């Protein structure tokens, strides 16, 4: 997707690839709602969407192209996304409303929200955290991408967010801290989050160069990566090789998994 123009929200895809893989393959059902609060993460949603039969792989080349439905910053027009986000800090509130609405409807659905660590700088995130805990929204699960990256550089240089897990705990949330590139850890955390009676947050420690760190420069702008054609080709070769060695997970379209959760 970034090859055509040589830039895009690649860092977000690299930090969150395993988060989306675990979410889509293990947790999310067609009945559930998904809010991706940093709309920039649409890129990884598209890539992962191919694996669950939600998006045609041939469509990926239209990412960010004028008139394409695969917009670079996702909206509710994006297949599979529930709200229009991208102005950071707003998604969790919508997810809380969806979770409350589902409870009022007597629905067993869950609401998943992908939230970036930079969004903890927005006061609204903490308004939503208070609201969700107070109203006992156990059907709400947040996947927090703790990639320590924002537009102006590493998040810890911009402001101090630590202690992240203590903050969410103090706000009344069920907190699960994991290595965000460890699929097994993510799956276990998601499972625990689903069983919680309180709103849950999976704090996933990640890296915006994960998997391609030997190809991309350390000082790369994690928010909006620029890549050369040579880097693209090297990355393709590297990922093809990695995929050959990787444990293969069979595609599992949502439609075939509908009703799987008892």
């Amino acid at each position: 997707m970034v090859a055509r123009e040589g830039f895009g929200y690649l860092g977000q895809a690299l930090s969150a690839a395993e988060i989306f893989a675990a979410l889509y393959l293990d947790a999310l059902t067609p009945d559930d709602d998904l809010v991706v609060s940093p709309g920039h993460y649409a890129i990884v949603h598209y890539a992962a969407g191919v694996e669950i039969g939600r998006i045609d792989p041939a469509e990926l080349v239209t990412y960010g192209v004028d008139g394409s439905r695969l917009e670079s910053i996702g909206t509710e027009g994006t297949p599979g996304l529930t709200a229009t986000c991208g102005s950071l800090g707003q998604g969790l509130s919508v997810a809380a409303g969806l979770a409350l609405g589902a409870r009022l409807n007597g629905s067993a659905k869950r609401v998943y929200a992908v939230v970036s660590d930079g969004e903890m700088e927005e006061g609204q995130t903490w308004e939503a955290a208070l609201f969700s805990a107070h109203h006992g929204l156990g059907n709400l699960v947040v996947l927090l991408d703790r990639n320590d990256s924002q537009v102006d550089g590493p998040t810890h240089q911009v402001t101090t967010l630590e202690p992240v897990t203590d903050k969410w705990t103090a706000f009344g949330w069920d907190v699960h801290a994991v290595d965000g590139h460890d699929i097994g850890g993510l799956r276990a955390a998601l499972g625990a989050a689903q069983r919680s009676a309180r709103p849950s947050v999976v704090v996933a420690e990640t890296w915006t160069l994960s998997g391609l760190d030997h190809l991309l420069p350390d000082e790369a702008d994690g928010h909006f990566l620029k890549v050369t054609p040579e880097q693209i080709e090297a990355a393709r070769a590297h990922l093809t090789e990695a995929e050959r060695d990787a444990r293969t997970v069979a595609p599992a379209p949502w439609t075939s998994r509908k009703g799987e959760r008892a």
Partner: protein
Amino acid sequence: MTTVKALRAPYTTVLKPYGSALVALARQKPNVVCLGADLTRQTETDLFRDQLGERFFNGAMSEQNLMGVAAGLARAGHQVFVNTFGVFATRRPYEQIAMQIAYPALDVKIVGLMPGLSTPGGPSHQATDDIALMRALPNMTVVDVADAREIPQAVTAISEIPGPVYLRLKRGEIPVLFDEDHRLDLDNVVVVDGETAPDEPVDLTIFATGMMVATALAAADALRGIGISVDVVNVACLKPLDTAGVLREVRRSKAVVTAENHSVIGGLGSAVAEVIAEAGLAVPFRRVGIQDTFARAASARYLFEHYGLGSQHLVDTAAALCGRSAPFPKVAEVRHEVGAYSPV
């Protein structure tokens, strides 16, 4: 078009017509949900909380979150009424309303009480630009009602609108300006006080909205006393504006004044001026309202007079616009009990 004959001050008043109407609506529509922001009694939603508590949620003092929660609830199939003071309902969560409610055109009704200079709370509490802000949002309907007859009808009417609505409401004692047969009209601007036939020329048309309808009625009587024929037009729905109706009234008027309890920038005055200008009409025109300033903390009566929203100021402005010279006629004083409603 029908001409309604409006009543004259002193007006009887009604308490909590909005809160009662919302409960009645929710009893009819099981999907109605009521949200608040730590102003439950002040927004008359204590009635809802006490009678339909399972559908009432206090979102605390966090309006940005509340608008997002409202959007989520609406996406889950609920009709959501968000209640707080107008200033807090519009300025602080503006971006949240834009992105989460207006852009997807969700079924969320934002009810902002305490409009303009009706509160002694000063600039922090006075919603003086809420109409301008909400008018600028695509998909948003903007309603400001004149009296206690219109409020329950407005609740029903906006519930029938599928998309987002901003409803601006006076708080506290609500005057009864119209008789029992009065019907709120969100589709048309309506002459509520006039002596000319609908197709006859008139010296002056006053387009008024919300609390300024009562002010305009008092001013109209004084102006008629010096031989100026006046139509008072109630504009209950500021967006979408009944453009054809505005033009119909402007075309037969020798002068036009707008009257709003709001900044003259972006509100009724701007909306009517846009219609006049785009139609290529030239008519003597003035906007009565808050003249691009913040206001102080003082009584509503003081503020209305001090910032030029009083009926005497309306008379002076209109008489001069109609070519009359001072001294202008005095608006009749209306006896009222302390704390009771009266037009200023």
